């Protein structure tokens, strides 16, 4: 795509990319900002190779994921993204860093208790702001099926919270 379309692309994706990085760097705002900036400047350099008809937002998230791994591997050479994702979501200490209130911590803990697929769906859709179409592209499922799954996941979440 032509570079003149990049500002619109940036506005459409900046919040999600930031959110994606933020949750994977333990809630470190300054680091998330630095990484977000790097990702979009890299994306700008490669924008002419971007074809929205082939990949929608997975293109920018691939750049974000690869950049994140490269940065983290500077301090932890053997790291891979799956390991990072599991570590971040399970780490209780960084919920303290975020100064979550009591209800938010309960909610966070309840999300961790969902089955992995449901927890991932809730995180991507409701915490990171992905669309069902984008999630479908990522996980290889139908968007309609994901809507139903999300509805059931939120129902299960309410049940967990009532029990606590």
């Amino acid at each position: 795509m032509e570079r003149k379309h990049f500002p619109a692309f940036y506005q459409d994706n900046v919040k999600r990319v930031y959110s994606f990085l933020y949750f994977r760097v333990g809630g470190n705002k300054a680091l998330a900002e630095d990484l977000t900036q790097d990702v979009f400047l890299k994306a700008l350099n490669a924008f002419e190779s971007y074809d929205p008809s082939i990949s929608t937002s997975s293109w920018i998230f691939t750049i974000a994921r690869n950049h994140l791994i490269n940065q983290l591997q500077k301090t932890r050479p053997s790291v891979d993204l799956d390991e990072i994702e599991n570590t971040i979501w399970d780490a209780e200490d960084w919920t303290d860093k975020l100064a979550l209130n009591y209800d938010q911590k309960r909610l966070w803990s309840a999300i961790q208790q969902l089955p992995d697929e449901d927890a991932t769906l809730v995180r991507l859709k409701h915490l990171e702001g992905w669309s069902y179409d984008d999630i479908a592209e990522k996980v290889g499922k139908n968007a309609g099926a994901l809507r139903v799954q999300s509805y059931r996941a939120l129902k299960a979440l309410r049940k967990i919270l009532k029990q606590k």
Partner: protein
Amino acid sequence: MKRQLKGLAAHAQPDPAFVRHLALRINARIGQGAGWTQSWKWAVASVTAISLIGGATGVYAYTSDDVLPGHSLYAVRQGIEHIEEVATLNPAKKIAVQVKQLKRRLHENELLTIRKQDKSILQTQVDAFVKGVQTVLDDTSKLPESKQAEVDADVAKITANHAGVLLEGQKRADSELEKSHIQEILKDEQARIRKKIESLKDSRQQHFRISKPEELLNKSDR
């Protein structure tokens, strides 16, 4: 449930200032206005220049109390403030930015007075302060009346504090000559601000009470 999740998601939202700043950098690289007018190009170039100097330098210039008129980085601060104002399109927010910058001038002049800088700089600073007051009062006339009262109250407080700073400067003067020089600056400042207020409509004039310089000077002598 969705509201609770939104509350949690709010922690992961980027700072709007960061989003705007990165947008400016991107547009500078592309070399276009992205829907903005041609007059923004220089603003974008300035921001890029500041970023290239080193974001830390720009931050230092903008926030440090050591960067006062006469300092090599003071022009950087002025550039950032100008962009800050120009980049704000909403009239009420623009005035809020102007008031913030007025408070900055007040703070700078307070530091200049305490540090007893070259008095020619003080005159330039007071001129900038008065011009800032005049601009804010003019622009505020475009706001609804309830907002006008709020801004006028703020400006009244800032101008009163500024007069206090000059009085303090007078007290700290090393010589009678310096003392009378600051007195003249204060008289001139108060006269110009009073003239501006008297040009406002009656309902707004009520928001201010500008003391005559003699009253201020008499108070300070007690």
